[in-house]
């Protein structure tokens, strides 16, 4: 962040933008010359650095605010020498001795210094070197930086300095990962900011301002917004919009990640490690559930749920049956925390909430009555109860899909339709299609994975009837294959035929009819 008089902006048609420094040869050259100046001045007095910089600044042809800003950013990277004697104590002695009369001649000064060094018990040289050493210290260390890092830092500082004057900050994130979003919201609270948050498609939008922003236009929260910016830059896919109050006018400011990347080299991002489980309870449950074949996939840290600007980050999510069912585990925690949490959970009645049994005993614990799926657990999360809840959703989903099929199903035109085709055509699950087809379709026979017209079935049936007791199983399947490209075994069974096995060899099998079944088929 920089003093606001060093901020350079471009304004046009009600819009404002900081004049970011491009990473060009020219700018890198300026950055380098100032960095070199600092390196050269290690071991020298601060005033030397300042003098040399002023010369450099006066000779440079670009806007003086750029080199001056770079100077300020680098100044923060120096460490100065501690004086060997406390200058304040030295001055006290010198001033007291000098106070007996106005010191106006060189002789007077000499005498004051002589007497002072004698009284302090240090040499004249030590006295003079340390007397003003806090005003003008020796530079001991300078932690260097590369020119492009310096330009990046400068551009970031420009951005932050502009935001000092912001009255509101709107950010939009495309598909942020849970961890970053969580950090972001935590950071906002830390800086005393308030937010509105909502989702639109893949994007999460957050409008940021402070408590009194609803009452008056204020830049009071600009500094907090500026300090918050570095956390935003760590999230991928950000863009921001802001109102900048300048000279009693409001300018609009917009910036996106892609544009800013031209000016700001990101620091090498640390590898994001999936956080460890909060507890063994959660870890065991996760492993156990995913080893079962339930048709549901259990995911961790599935991302935020947002409603009325309230955000929660559930621990788990069950994905399947065209649904995402979220689950939150409420462990044993402080009273305020639990109260706050319950207040939030009210807004999410569908959430599965697993509550530590011990909480039941704690005073004032109250579960929001809105919650539909509450499970208490002691040491492990009861799988059965979870599965029971999930079954409700499975049944619900089946119900919904059956309705959908009912509304959309038309008698097929071709004699053979596969279940898979129907699934993708109506975007429903196999289970639903099958259970629908089992209810029967006029003029068709459902064989398990195929819907075949009755006429075709009859034709095949007649052909096979003629070969009863003669043909082998393999021959029968070949004959069916002439009409139907796959699942011949299924058709064979569905027509009510069976096989007499004479040996293990297929050639040695003879087909026959399970006579009583035929009528069954005809009926349907």
């Amino acid at each position, binding site marked *: 962040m920089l003093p606001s008089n060093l901020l*350079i902006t471009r304004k046009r048609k009600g819009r404002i933008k900081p004049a970011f420094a491009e990473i060009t040869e020219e700018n890198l050259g300026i950055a380098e010359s100032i960095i070199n100046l600092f390196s050269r001045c290690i071991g020298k007095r601060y005033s030397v650095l300042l003098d040399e910089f002023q010369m450099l600044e*006066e000779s440079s*042809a*670009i*806007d*003086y*605010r750029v080199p001056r800003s770079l100077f300020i950013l680098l100044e923060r990277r120096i460490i100065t020498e501690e004086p060997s004697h406390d200058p*304040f104590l030295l*001055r*006290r002695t*010198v*001033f*007291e001795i*000098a*106070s007996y*009369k*106005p*010191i*106006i001649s060189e002789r007077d*000064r000499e005498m*004051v210094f002589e007497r002072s060094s004698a009284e302090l018990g240090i040499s004249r040289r030590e006295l003079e070197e340390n007397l*003003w050493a806090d*005003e003008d210290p020796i530079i001991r260390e300078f932690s260097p930086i590369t020119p492009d890092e310096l330009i990046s830092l400068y551009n970031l500082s420009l951005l932050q300095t502009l935001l000092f004057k912001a009255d509101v900050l709107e950010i939009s994130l495309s598909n942020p990962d849970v961890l970053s979003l969580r950090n972001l919201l935590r950071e906002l609270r830390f800086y*005393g900011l*308030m*937010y*509105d948050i909502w989702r639109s498609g893949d994007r999460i939008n957050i409008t940021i301002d*402070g*408590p*009194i922003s*609803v*009452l*008056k236009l*204020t*830049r*009071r929260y600009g500094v907090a917004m500026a300090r918050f910016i570095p956390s935003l830059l760590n999230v991928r896919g950000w863009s921001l919009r802001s109102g900048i109050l300048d000279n009693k006018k409001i300018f609009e400011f917009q910036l996106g990640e892609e544009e800013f990347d031209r000016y700001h080299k990101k620091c090498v991002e640390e590898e994001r490690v999936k956080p460890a489980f909060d507890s063994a309870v959660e870890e065991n449950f996760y492993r156990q559930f995913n080893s079962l074949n339930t048709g549901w996939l259990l995911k961790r840290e599935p991302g935020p749920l947002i409603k*009325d*600007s309230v955000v929660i980050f559930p621990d788990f999510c069950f994905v399947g049956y065209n649904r995402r069912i979220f689950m939150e585990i409420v462990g044993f925690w402080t009273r305020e925390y639990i109260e706050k949490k319950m207040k939030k959970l009210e807004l999410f009645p569908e959430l599965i909430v697993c509550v530590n049994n011990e909480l039941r005993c704690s005073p004032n614990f109250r579960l929001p009555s809105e919650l539909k799926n509450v499970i208490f657990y002691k040491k492990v999360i009861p799988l059965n109860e979870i599965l029971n809840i999930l079954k409700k959703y499975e049944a619900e989903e089946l119900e919904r899909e059956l309705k959908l099929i009912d509304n959309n199903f038309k008698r097929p035109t071709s004699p053979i339709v596969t279940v898979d085709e129907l699934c993708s055509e109506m975007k429903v699950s196999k289970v639903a299609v099958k259970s629908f087809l089992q209810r029967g379709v006029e003029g068709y026979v459902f064989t398990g994975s195929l819907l075949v017209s009755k006429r075709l079935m009859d034709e095949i049936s007649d052909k096979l009837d003629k070969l009863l007791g003669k043909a082998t199983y393999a021959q029968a399947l070949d004959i069916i294959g002439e009409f139907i490209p796959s699942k011949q075994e299924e058709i064979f069974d569905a027509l009510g035929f069976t096989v007499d096995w004479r040996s293990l060899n297929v050639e040695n099998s003879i087909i026959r009819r399970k006579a009583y079944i035929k009528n069954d088929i005809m009926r349907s």
Partner: protein
Amino acid sequence: MAVHLSYHRGSILIRGTHVPNSRWDERSKCYRALALHYPDILNYLKGTLNEYASDFIVRDGMDIEDEVLDPIPCPRFKPPGYKLRDYQRKAVDSWLKSKRGIIVLPTGSGKTLVAVNIIFELNVPSLIVVPTLDLVRQWRSVLRESFDMEIGEYSGEEKILRPVTVATYDTAYLCAEELGNKFLLLVFDEVHHLPSEGYRHIAEMFCSPYRLGLTATYERADGLHGELPRLVGGVVFEEKVSRLSGKHLAEYSLKRIYTELTDEEKIEYKKNYDYYRNYLRTHNISLRSARDFKFFIMRTGRDPEARKALLARHRARKIALNSSSKLRVLSRLLQKHSKDRVIIFTEHNDLVRMISHKFLIPSIIHTTRKEERQDVLEKFKHGIYPRIVSSKVLDEGVDVPEANIGIILSGTGSKREFIQRLGRILRKKGNKKAVLYEIVSRETTEVRSSYRRRTK
């Protein structure tokens, strides 16, 4: 139905009804108002005036649950052991009628004592807001002596919360969210600072019903004093300098000393000043107002030539300011007043340092550490240091007792600054006659600045 009032970071949350000056806040699902309006809201709901005692009051069948204030427990204050002068008594009484408003008194007329008396009369947790660290120190010591108890401090250096606490404007601004419901009385020293865009938040984000403003210069050049009635209350008492001068304040005489630049300085000055003038002439720029000058400064960002011209102007002014003949005059004055208490002002920190180094006179500038600042002021007060030099930091209200000679080496030409710099040495002590010297270079732009200062 119950109305619930609570404090949230500089504002009042109102649940259960709508009140004037409030607005619906979707984020919190309730109405919100600036803390400033707390007394009005309460009065509106209760239909009565100025009572903050009870928690549950029924009006039109409405319960008020008021959890706004969280005041610091406050002991009974000891009566201050001094007698007020007539005009001070009048000031206190006028303010007590409405328990809001501003008292205008000249520098050196004992504004602090007026405030101490008011704090004593109300006996409620009080926050005093002052412009500088020196004033924080000064107020704390007066309050400590008066009430014989520990006084809190909220500044860049300390965060101590007590029933009576002194804060800087800066820190009060920064901490308004957390402090806003802890004090019933706010005292703004040098209240003309308050209406500036940032500082006014202090008045707006505190819910304190009682407010007192103190100043010697109510009016602001930018007209923003028009905000003060809303933030603190109107002027309830005013006493002019002229009526007090000679009676309670020391008389002073003003002596202006013109100096000539040396020949070398003249050449250097002319060279730089001509360069600057030449730039203006060739670019057809005329600088008639402060606004013109601002545009010129903006131009220096784009145009390196304008920048060079500006730097030349700086150099010229620096030559005029640091002229060696000025320092010779200064050294003569120091000799002449070797038995007096002398305070030297200049707004340029470089010049303060130079004078301090050359004449071995203790200095105070904005970067001087608290410890040293106190040491210097203390020793000046007791005469151990008969001379000090300082930049702007001593401008306002800092007690510099016993100073009878002032020397101004430069100034910016603002009206307020001038009065208050004068005020600094207008302390009545015996029959001492104060003298204020102003050293100005002849035939430089500075003469005009000095003229502006006097006539405005």
